[in-house]
């Protein structure tokens, strides 16, 4: 069925009142879930599965998808206002988003996050609609060597996140790699660094580390000051409550590359929105004229990752709907849901269920619009959160973190890990260690090790497999280029200084 006809049919399905309602419920729930640190779309969708069995499949799918991409909108709110990542992908938004809030521009940050999410989300849906089947086949060409190259590319971003001390950034990243390695080794079933505790057998959940280091570490660090009635300057005036035209102009590149990178990364099974946001942030920083300011509150540093993590949801649906292969935790549960409702996701799914597919696509357009309408006016409201006296806010943050983690894992051991990482995050702040590289190492470490070992198994021990395949060779060269960027800029400043001295 050709695209225009399909889309029209899809809108006919999506605009039915019942489905509109489900769409709204889904995006609203998604936003709420995204705001809550610790609770994420996979757990929420799974909890709702029994209910969806009683609904009509189109409406149910629309709602679940709404939760999926709605959560990406909500995740940025707490990241910006409180330096607490609401969703694992929002970790990157904390970097510049919170810095902007510190400077009184919380409103602009929130606004640009919503706008970038909308643009990228729409691009993601467009991609799903237009290029899904050929792209899915391209994704099949990706296997372990390409993943390794992708991860190496991501890790090379540490160079861009380094800040003052490269040694400390590297240390943070390596510690992140170590934490990622805790657990059972997939290939040999050996337990690594589990200290004999069975709770560590499946490793430490990323969310526990992120919330511990960011949220709890931040609260502890702030508790040092005795009197601080308000957390942050409340944005005054319209200029700071919403992004300005200048802001929007600055973010042009971020909107574009965030959408594209997020979508492409999403298509790859196994690569998630956290990786997408890191890469988008890194690329933005690499190409930006004011790259030194990143980390201190640059608006593109919010727009890029936020866009990427939204278009990633569109991308992740590509392998699910065109091949029946789930690309991430959430899409795996969506797959289970489809099976539960009696569908058989696979290469023939779209052809056999055009109403469901096109209805879903149309609803995603609608959902994105709904989210924009929901989120933008709420920005000034959210910014007022900053008015709460700190002694109410901090316990709230601590409490929500605890409840959020417990809700998704039900484990008291995880809560103990949470407090441990909280202390660790506090110490990192005091000792001036950057936390972004640690998160980067944690997210990419496990996947990178797996990809390397899988590649070497495929090539029977020969490393050349990494460069003999075109895609991985290209990405490895990108990684190398990124590593050379600081050298270039240093070389450039020598050159400029030398030129100045000559005059």
């Amino acid at each position, binding site marked *: 069925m050709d695209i225009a006809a399909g889309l029209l049919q899809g809108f006919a399905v999506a605009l039915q009142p019942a489905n509109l309602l489900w769409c709204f419920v889904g995006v609203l729930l998604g936003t709420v879930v995204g705001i809550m640190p610790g609770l994420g779309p996979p757990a929420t969708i799974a909890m709702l599965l029994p209910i969806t069995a009683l609904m009509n499949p189109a409406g149910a799918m629309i709602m679940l998808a709404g939760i999926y991409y709605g959560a990406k909108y909500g995740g940025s709110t707490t990241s910006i206002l409180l330096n607490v990542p609401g969703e694992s992908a929002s970790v990157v938004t904390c970097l510049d988003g919170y810095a902007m809030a510190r400077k009184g521009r919380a409103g602009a940050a929130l606004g640009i996050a919503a706008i970038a999410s909308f643009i990228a989300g729409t691009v993601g849906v467009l991609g799903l609609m237009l290029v899904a089947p050929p792209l899915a086949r391209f994704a099949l060409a990706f296997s372990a060597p390409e993943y390794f190259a992708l991860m190496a590319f991501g890790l090379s971003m540490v160079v861009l996140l380094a800040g003052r001390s490269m040694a400390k950034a590297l240390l943070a990243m390596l510690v992140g790699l170590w934490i990622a390695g805790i657990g059972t080794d997939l290939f040999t079933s050996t337990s690594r660094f589990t200290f004999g505790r069975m709770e560590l057998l499946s490793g430490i959940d990323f969310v526990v580390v992120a919330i511990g280091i960011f949220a709890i570490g931040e609260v*502890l660090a702030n508790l040092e000051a005795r009197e601080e009635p308000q957390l942050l300057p409340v944005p005054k005036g319209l200029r700071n409550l919403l992004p300005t035209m200048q802001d929007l102009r600055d973010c042009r590149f971020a909107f574009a590359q965030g959408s594209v990178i997020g979508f492409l990364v999403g298509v790859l099974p196994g690569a998630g929105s956290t990786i997408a946001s890191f890469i988008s942030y890194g690329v933005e920083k690499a190409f930006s004229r004011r790259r030194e300011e990143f980390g201190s509150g640059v608006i593109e540093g919010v727009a890029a990752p936020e866009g990427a993590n939204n278009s990633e949801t569109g991308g992740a649906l590509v392998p699910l709907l065109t091949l029946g292969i789930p690309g991430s935790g959430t899409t795996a549960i969506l797959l289970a849901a489809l099976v539960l409702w009696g569908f058989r996701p696979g290469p023939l799914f779209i052809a056999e269920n055009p109403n469901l597919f096109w209805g879903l696509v149309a609803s995603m357009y609608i959902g994105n619009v709904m989210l924009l309408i929901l989120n933008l006016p709420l920005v000034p409201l959210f910014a007022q959160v900053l008015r709460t006296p700190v002694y109410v806010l901090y316990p709230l943050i601590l409490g929500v973190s605890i409840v959020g983690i417990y809700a998704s894992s039900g484990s008291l051991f995880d809560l103990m890990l949470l407090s441990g990482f909280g202390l660790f995050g506090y110490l990192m702040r*005091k000792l001036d260690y950057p936390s972004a590289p640690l998160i980067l190492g944690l997210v990419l470490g496990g996947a990178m090790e797996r990809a390397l070992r899988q590649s070497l198994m495929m090539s029977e021990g020969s490393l050349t497999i990494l460069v003999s395949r075109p895609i991985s060779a290209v990405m490895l060269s990108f990684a190398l280029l990124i590593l050379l960027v600081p050298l270039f800029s240093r070389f450039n400043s020598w050159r400029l200084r030398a030129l100045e001295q000559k005059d």
Partner: protein
Amino acid sequence: MRSRSPDFWSGLALAALGGYIVMQARGWDYATEDGPGPGFFPLWYGLGILACAAFLVFFGKDSPADWRGAGRALATWAVLAACIAALKFVGFAISFAALTFFIVAVMYRRPPGVAALVALGVVAGFYLVFPLALGVALP
């Protein structure tokens, strides 16, 4: 002797971690017939940690960290850890109320009345939102 800056101590601690990792890694297979074994990656990043930590110890900055407020932060952390440990025995309401009370009263020197009010309000809020409205269990 060079001054004991935070870089020095943290470098030392991380070097110890690196050493531990390397030791553990040597207990596992470095390479099996099917490819790198479980010891491969840890060995390398353990060595990396050792190298960077050593760099810090010898070439790190000397500026001392500002430890003035640390006592408050650490005390709060201790209370947080204690409350989490207590969750199993007294449940969420009591331990979290205790934590809130501590933060408000001790950290911010607000009168105990205010502290108690905030503590109760916050706990009530949690109970309203989570188990009732969202159906999420509290510890």
